[in-house]
């Protein structure tokens, strides 16, 4: 085969000239990576917040309610004049509850949508998979995850969790109530993966500090669909069962536990994570009557409901039982989703403190948030007062212990901020930007 040349063929000189002109045009239009600069935002241009949403995958139920809360929070912020006089716009990307797609979402926020910050991630593996990219992109990344990964020092200076407490703080603050009111000999039943291991490790230490002990640790493989065979492993001396099962098998877990124990059971203490987006009055959950749950924020309206909580509940579209106003069967993730509302208010406060004008002020924004400390209970923080630790990038707040009473979650005890404090494990402020 031969290659034919024609008179119309482009000469080398013309080709090089064309390439040069093309490259010049691309560079001036900001398309070449090296020339990619942020065009200074006009004062009226919206502030863009990238919302990394679990729209699909295992976190979809959370994602839907995180979305509803985010929308409500942004509407309130915009109704009150936006941030630094600029409207706020949410750019949503589905991360599929997958760490790889999570990192891709951050890339889109930064490079396609020119977002100012990213926010909203819940599931730990997505946070941990995305955080390195946030640092590389120099994109402030505000997570709503409750994982200990931020405060543990695993992540970086660009990743902050100012709107929801972490699992270590939650567990530590539960231990005194359990030891003093339910019993000191505890059997733990937990999923055999990182979330369950965090509970196992943190609670074991915390209950020992209260003079109690974990008498058995029963790890359930994540693929398990039936649980009856694990219950005979619960020692007879057990006074409290601490359970943190999550996922679609939770209803089976509770039902089989009820069938195993019948009317004579130890005290039960669980984390509402097990039953987020699930009605406590669902068939098969009758066994949970008179048992206790940790709640990040009480799902059911309490007698002493604050005005802030009342306004927040209405804004996110939830009824007195934490279900959608449009569909009582659509139960929210009420114990966690307040974190989106509060995080967005922290971003607003941080941007206003830093006089944020655009991406060139991102480091000032992070420093402004790091400088925050006490946040009083208000409509900005309807869950309650908070205390932010700028060194660990982690917020601390009150925790609720509710008892299921005639199908309603009634708050029995409120753990204070101080109950959930622990030693710093990192100082992110010593890291350079």
């Amino acid at each position, binding site marked *: 085969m031969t290659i034919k040349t024609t008179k119309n063929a482009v000469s080398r000189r013309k080709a090089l000239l064309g390439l040069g002109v093309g490259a010049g045009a691309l560079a001036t239009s900001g398309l*070449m990576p090296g020339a990619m600069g942020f065009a200074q935002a006009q004062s009226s241009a919206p502030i863009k917040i990238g919302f990394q949403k679990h729209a699909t995958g295992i976190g979809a139920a959370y994602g839907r309610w995180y979305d509803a809360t985010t929308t409500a929070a942004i509407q309130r912020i915009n109704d009150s004049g936006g941030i630094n006089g600029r409207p706020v716009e949410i750019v949503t990307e*589905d991360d599929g509850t*997958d*760490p*790889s797609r999570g990192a891709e979402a951050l*890339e889109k926020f930064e490079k396609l949508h020119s977002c100012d910050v990213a926010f909203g991630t819940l599931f730990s593996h997505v946070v*941990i998979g995305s955080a390195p990219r946030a640092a590389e992109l120099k994109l402030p990344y505000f997570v709503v995850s409750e994982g200990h990964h931020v405060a543990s020092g695993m*992540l970086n200076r660009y990743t902050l969790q100012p709107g929801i407490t972490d699992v270590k703080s939650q567990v530590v603050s539960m231990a005194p109530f359990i030891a003093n009111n339910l019993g000191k000999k505890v059997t733990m039943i937990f999923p*055999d993966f990182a979330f369950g291991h965090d509970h196992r490790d943190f609670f074991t230490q915390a209950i020992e500090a209260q003079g109690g002990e974990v008498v058995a640790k029963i790890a359930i*493989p994540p693929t398990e669909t039936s649980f009856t065979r694990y219950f005979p492993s619960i020692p007879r001396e057990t006074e409290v069962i601490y359970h943190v099962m999550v996922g679609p098998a939770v209803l089976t877990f509770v039902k089989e536990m009820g069938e195993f124990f019948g009317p004579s059971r130890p005290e039960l203490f669980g984390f509402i994570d097990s039953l987020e987006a699930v009605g406590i009055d669902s068939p098969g959950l009758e066994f949970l009557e008179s048992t206790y749950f940790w709640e990040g924020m009480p799902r059911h309206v309490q007698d002493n409901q604050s005005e802030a909580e009342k306004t927040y509940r209405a804004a996110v579209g939830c009824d007195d039982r934490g279900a959608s106003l449009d569909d009582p069967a659509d139960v929210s993730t009420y114990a966690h989703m307040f974190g989106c509302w509060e995080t967005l208010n922290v971003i607003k406060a941080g941007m206003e403190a830093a006089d944020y004008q655009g991406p060139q002020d991102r480091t000032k924004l992070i420093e402004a948030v790091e400088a925050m400390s006490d946040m009083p209970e208000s409509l900005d923080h309807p869950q309650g007062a908070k205390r932010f630790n700028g060194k660990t990038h982690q917020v601390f707040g009150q925790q609720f212990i509710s008892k299921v009473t005639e199908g309603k979650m009634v708050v029995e005890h409120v753990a204070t901020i101080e109950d959930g404090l622990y030693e710093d494990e990192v100082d992110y402020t010593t890291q350079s930007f």
Partner: protein
Amino acid sequence: MTVAGKINTLHFGILLFLLACFFILPAYHVGALSRIMVLAIYAIGLNILFGYTGLLSLGHAMFFAAGMYGLGLSIKFLGVSVIPAFGIGILSAAVLSVLVGLLALRTVGVSFMIVTLMFAQTIYLVVLYFGEYTRGDEGFVLQQAERMLLNFDVTTEAGRYFVAFGAFSICLISFAALVQSSFGKRLVAIRENEERARMLGYDVWRYKLLAVIISGTVSGVAGALYALLFGYVGATFASVQYSILPLLWVLLGGAGKTIGPLIGVAFMFYLIDASSAYTSAYMLIAGLALVILTMFAPRGIAGILQAKVWPWLP
């Protein structure tokens, strides 16, 4: 031009195009291409086994994860630098592929698929079981300072792109040379008619084992590279989802075609990327695309190219 010349021109043309992409594409697509090239290496790994040898593995995530954890754990716990860690990652995948090959090749057909799936599930559960070290489903981060390749920072856009490009170039050229070699032709002979290959005197089992080892090791290279370039090691990459994805990429791009993996990964990536902007049912769209391609172009996009444009496509 000879067929070999055309093939070489095509492969080097693709590499030249990828190189040029760094300078002409917007930043987002440069980042996306880095990821696509790493995942295309993974798909090349599966293509060797599935596309050329006719062995369908449903558990290739175990090899990807072996490379990823080999690199990640050695950096985290042994404190070794990137190059020896990369070697450990590749070695982990190679050793695993030898073991899996020795056992799984005692089966054929559907049984082979199921056995590989079960091995992968075992590896996934092992990762979760040793959560104290692996951090299970959460995974762990490789810090920026731990990812320096000698004095070269792979966490910059350029660093990441050119390392991905370099690795992909080596894999594509080696892969093309392999499938055009007598060894590659023997693999194809096994795929087309195993009994006949055996009757011709070829030690079919040995060739299959070599195919599993090469395929698993290449997949491990991709896993180690992913951990290095994106700084995250997690059990998600050992899950069944990441065994199915390379199969989809290869089927879409063209099984048994050297350029199939790159086309398949790029097509799937941008299909999901674009469709997810409009609907949360983007996987349905991806599924429909696969069904349509399977019905009307069973040999994938590269198969269409071969039928319509480049009949010499290897």
